[in-house]
């Protein structure tokens, strides 16, 4: 190694930004920096990590013509090999448990382990979705209690719990709007979507059979109210607005927008991905929203798991509530909680637009979200929004002298701070800052989104970062901004201290390799070059 920093534990960069002179180990590992082959390259025929009984009977006669010619071509690993394989892989992931994960619009916050413990109680984890209702009264109560919190926090009339993720919730909300329009006998086919919206918004509108028309943003990063009003008419089914929006700003005209849309006979869909910024501070129902999905995994901290699962319940206004999909829970005249599905849909819910998923939604996520909500309480959730907004504004004001913040002049941001890469040295961009943050030990912010800002950097610290932690992050971001302004070439080759250097995404897309190309049935040790030993 060419040297250590003042703290004595981290190698410093050489002149060219290289970690050290090339030093090659024969294993491909470098101490605790581990390489790991694919399971297909480790496995061997005949290995199995599970002890399985031997069946007593030959296959039933009727099955004989369907039997496989050979077992699936999947190598097995023993239990210790399996545990080691996945543990070694886990070491190549950044995670919120390791440090800040300031992904704007994605909301990575502390995931309390109590949520996990509660979700694993056998009364929740080991219950079948089609058990007789009398045997699952506690599970139905979980749904009802969570629904009550969501309705009360948002000031809405009802909630559809079954959507499986945010985008699925968007679809649910738009289908409710579609069903309500059908019930009115109207064929409105246009949905207005601001250009700053998540890509899911227009994709969802198209999926629900609507045509999408874009609404421009004002120079201050808000929906252009006059432009929106100009587009309203008898063919407009509604508008999809994200609030707080993807520029990290609250839409102050929300009520005026809703009034105008309602007056024109349309409905207001609010993308609630950023509800964490306002929970306990304002109720969307008071602003005229008709439908809004809530990403339970974001606002209420269910685990993200490297990409999901999500959960996207949709709160609904009184106008849309009757059309909510099956199944759902309701409290009957006897005081008991009932699951309304096909079998008993007659109970005053004959207007449901249909079923969106096989069963009742993400029960395991409901359990976790309810656990989190009860832990915070109404007072804690309000503090959540306040601390999330405070943390974002702290980052914004601490860095805006070095990184332009296009909308900072117009006031505070909400839960996320938006910067741009304008003013960096020629050839330096957001990507260099992002990859540099990896070397600093942080997960990068959201990059190049929203599209309305050049070289956008969207930083969402969340409420579970401490001031000391933010100060460290701010110091790194400022240092990187200075280096990028000064044209520090070593940034172009960052990250230097990650399991992989910059990956060739163009090659991956041009010649897609989506499954392991090894020789079927011939698992074996890969060569060093295959697993990356240089």
């Amino acid at each position, binding site marked *: 190694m060419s040297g250590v920093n003042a703290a004595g534990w981290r190698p410093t960069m050489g002149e060219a930004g290289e970690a050290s002179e090339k030093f090659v180990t024969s294993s491909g590992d470098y101490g605790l920096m581990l390489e790991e082959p*694919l*399971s297909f390259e480790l496995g061997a025929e005949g290995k199995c*990590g599970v002890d399985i009984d031997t*069946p007593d*009977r030959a*296959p039933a006669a009727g099955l004989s013509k369907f039997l496989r010619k050979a077992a*699936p071509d999947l190598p*097995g690993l023993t239990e210790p090999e399996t545990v080691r394989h*996945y543990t070694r892989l886990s*070491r190549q*992931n*950044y*995670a*919120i448990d*390791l440090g800040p994960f300031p*992904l704007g619009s994605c909301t990575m916050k502390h995931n*309390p382990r*109590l949520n996990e413990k509660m979700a694993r109680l*056998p009364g929740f984890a*080991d*219950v079948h979705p*089609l*058990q*007789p209702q009398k*045997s699952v009264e*506690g599970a139905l109560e*979980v749904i009802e209690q969570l629904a009550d919190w969501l309705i009360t926090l948002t000031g809405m009339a009802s909630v559809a719990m079954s959507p*499986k*993720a945010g985008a699925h919730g968007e679809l649910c909300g738009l289908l409710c709007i579609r069903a309500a329009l059908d019930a009115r006998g109207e064929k409105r086919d246009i949905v207005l979507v601001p250009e700053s919206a998540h890509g899911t918004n227009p*994709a969802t509108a198209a999926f629900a059979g609507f045509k999408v028309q874009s609404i421009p943003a004002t120079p201050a990063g808000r929906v252009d109210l006059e432009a929106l009003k100009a587009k309203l008419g008898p063919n407009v089914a509604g508008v999809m607005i994200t609030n707080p929006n993807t520029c990290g700003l*609250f839409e*102050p005209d*929300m009520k005026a927008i809703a009034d105008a849309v309602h007056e024109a006979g349309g409905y207001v869909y609010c993308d609630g991905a950023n509800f964490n910024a306002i929970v*306990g501070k304002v*109720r969307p129902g008071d602003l005229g929203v008709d439908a809004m999905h809530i990403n339970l995994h974001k606002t209420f901290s269910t685990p993200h798991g*490297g*990409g*999901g699962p999500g*959960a996207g319940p949709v709160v609904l206004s009184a106008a849309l509530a009757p059309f909510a999909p099956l199944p759902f829970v309701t409290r009957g005249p006897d005081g008991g909680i009932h699951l309304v599905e096909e079998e008993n849909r007659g109970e005053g819910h004959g207007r449901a637009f249909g*079923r969106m998923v*096989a*069963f009742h939604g993400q*029960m395991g996520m409901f359990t976790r979200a309810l656990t989190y909500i009860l832990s915070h309480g*109404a*007072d*804690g959730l309000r*503090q959540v929004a306040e601390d999330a907004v405070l943390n974002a*504004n702290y980052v914004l004001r601490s860095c805006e002298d070095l990184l332009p913040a296009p909308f900072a002049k117009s006031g*505070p941001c909400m839960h996320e701070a938006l910067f741009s890469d304008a003013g960096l040295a020629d050839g330096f961009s957001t990507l260099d800052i992002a990859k540099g943050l*990896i070397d600093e030990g942080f997960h990068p912010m959201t*990059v190049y989104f929203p599209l309305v800002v050049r070289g956008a950097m969207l930083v969402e610290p969340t409420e*579970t970062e401490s001031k000391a932690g933010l100060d460290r992050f701010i110091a790194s971001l400022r240092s990187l901004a200075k280096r990028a302004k000064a044209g520090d070439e070593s940034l172009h080759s960052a990250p230097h201290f990650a*399991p992989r250097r910059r*990956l060739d995404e163009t090659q*991956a897309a041009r010649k*897609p390799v*989506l*499954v*392991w190309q090894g020789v*079927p049935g011939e698992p074996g040790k890969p060569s060093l070059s295959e697993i990356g030993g240089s």
Partner: protein
Amino acid sequence: MRYLPLTDADRAAMLDVIGAASVDDLFIDVPSEARLSGPVEGLPMHASEMAVERHMSALAGKNLSAGSAPFFLGAGAYRHHVPASVDHIIQRGEFLTAYTPYQPEIAQGTLQVLFEFQTQVARLFGTDIANASMYDGSTACWEAILMAARITRKDRAILSGGLHPHYGEVVRTMAKFTEDEIASLACELTREPDDAAVIAAIDEKTSCVVVQYPDILGRIPDLAAISEAAHAKGALVVAVVTEPVALGMIEAPGNLGADIVVGEGQSLGVGLQFGGPYLGLFGCREKFVRQMPGRLCGETVDAEGKRGFVLTLSTREQHIRREKATSNICTNSGLCALAFSIHLTLLGGNGLAQLAAVNHDRTQAAVERLTQIPGVSLLNDAYFNEVTLVLPGDAREAVRELADRKVLGGVSLGRLFPAQEDLHKGLLVAATETTTDEDIETLATELAAVLEGVPA
């Protein structure tokens, strides 16, 4: 408020840097008349870990869990033993608390798992490729129909009568809005599946036929014959697998001509969880890759030539193509895919085959015993780990009475097909490796008592 690290002193110092007098000033854009002055009314305040645990445990205690009773439910969700190491590994923070791998240099763990998962699913299904998972089997089924319509430029999908009725309902719900035509065949209590009716329904406008394998009554359709007929008319075959353990024993749909294979992956590693989260499996022929919905992980190299993995072909996806995307899906079931992948890695192909054989054996044992009950007969000619029993009366009553006797005896067809009275005598019974001889004996004894009208 144990999850919030800011102290009041921190908050004051930060407001000072920001230049705001109070936190409320940061909410200046929220109209003052809509801003709440205190905690939302009508909800409790924060609670200690111990208090929350007590509350949630009380709710959990009101449910009869599968492991605490003889248990025979299936119909798209199956109880299998999940090895302890699966749940242990997925709770490692680097998996549990990671996000979508947008920065591949520090997400190789998740990405390599997804690549291995895709390979496992493709090999299990007999397809060329697979994606990195969908929400669940039912939504994957709908996405497959949309994909088939894009590929064939035809929009009439035929659903076999053996398709899970909830899957059919999801498809019909979505099609109402996209104006795809869905021809749903009726489910009938016949010994063999409705292959002939499916084949007869295929015409020149057909984009795809959707066939569950094994089907909702536990029967096994002849995918090869259906595929031949569909391909002759330019239609695709979508095979739906709700019990992937079956593929340890019966031929993979892709090897029988299915063009798209979708499935529910809950059986491996995930657990029942009262219906979710589960994970949708999605495999298809390689030539359809750019029409696939959902996330894909691909192999590539890094700047030093080392093998690495990235999310790829995102030009199909909503964040690039917006309203022209192949799907609005924006997430995958990453953690469930990890659990599935670990469980399948522990089993290997031979282990899965043996597990499947045990499932079939346990089901044979249940069939042998339950068909000895007077008035109870077996519908199926062929079955894997689930069968339809025909009872003398409405099976819904029997299921409820069995539950009163602490026996979870199966899923009544009346619950799944309320409008079809001809099915109401049907009781779906599933057995897996978790089913003991004692469980079977208890069900047989109690079911006989219920049918004879003996009080509990």
